[in-house]
């Protein structure tokens, strides 16, 4: 990225705070992940920030990334990608850009295998298909 483009980088966007009851999770796996965090007393926020990852020379946003969860005390973002492999590749690419632009931000990308392992350790692996989806078999 050239210097001019760096200078026009749009600011990180703070998303509106929503109470836990009103959060509209994009996928059942996210709801279950939130439930696990609550169970173990971990403070979290859902998509609190949107990080610009690409923009034009005038600073107009072309691409951005909003990690799903922010673990407050751990200062850690977690992105769940439990759907198709194609989406995982897309998110990996966005994550690489995010890490390059914001090296101070700690982000973990959890794929289907990661989420399955979590369910296994929690003893609820039978919920895998329900939570991850019919198209979620490991390739």
């Amino acid at each position, binding site marked *: 990225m050239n210097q001019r483009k760096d200078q026009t980088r749009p600011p990180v966007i703070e998303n509106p705070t929503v109470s836990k009851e009103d959060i509209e999770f994009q996928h059942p796996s996210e709801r279950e992940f939130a439930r*696990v965090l609550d*169970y*173990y*007393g*971990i403070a979290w926020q859902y998509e609190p920030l949107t990080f610009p990852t690409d923009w034009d020379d005038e600073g107009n946003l072309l691409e951005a990334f909003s990690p799903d969860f922010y673990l407050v005390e*751990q200062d850690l973002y977690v992105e769940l990608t439990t759907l198709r492999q194609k989406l995982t590749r897309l998110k990996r690419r966005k994550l690489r850009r995010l890490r390059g632009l914001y090296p101070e931000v700690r982000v973990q990308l959890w794929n289907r295998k990661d989420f399955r392992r*979590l369910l296994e350790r929690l003893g609820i692996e039978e919920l895998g298909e329900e939570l991850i989806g019919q198209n979620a078999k490991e390739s």
Partner: protein
Amino acid sequence: MDTQAMRLDSHLDRVVLTEEEIGARIAAIGSEISDDYAGRDPLLVGVLNGVVMFMADLLRAITIPVGVDFMAISHYAADRGAGTVRITKDLDESITGRHVLFVEDVIDTGLTLNYLLRALRTREPASLNVCVLFDRPYRRLIDIPLAYHGFELPDEFVVGYGLDSNGHYRNLPYVGVLKPDVRL
């Protein structure tokens, strides 16, 4: 296939840690703990049930006087949607002012261990350190300093030496990868 009638070792695809490897590492950890805690009368604390085998072998590898106590917590699978972790069996001994070594068979995300350490810290022990035999660092959400550490496990579903699948396989004296079609 009647998996209930099969010998447990026939359920495994392969062994990843032998009984001898585990024993040698525990002996080394026990020796370290004996040196580090000499004269401090530490209390070893474990969470039931997975830690039983490790705790039993570790205690026998420690050569200084130590106490031992256990606690138990609710399981997410049984409690799903019920809110938060519950301590279903608390420690019998007070840990206030004691040097506590928390002994755990495995650390994965760190969620369980983090919860328990927070609960124990409120009781104001003189010190609180962690000894973990098996480390699965691949999905660590909570960074927890490990004073004593045994092995890093492969990123596969393994059982044995305290690690279970639906409550089974803990009694295997080694750690192995389950065959995909025989899980109890």
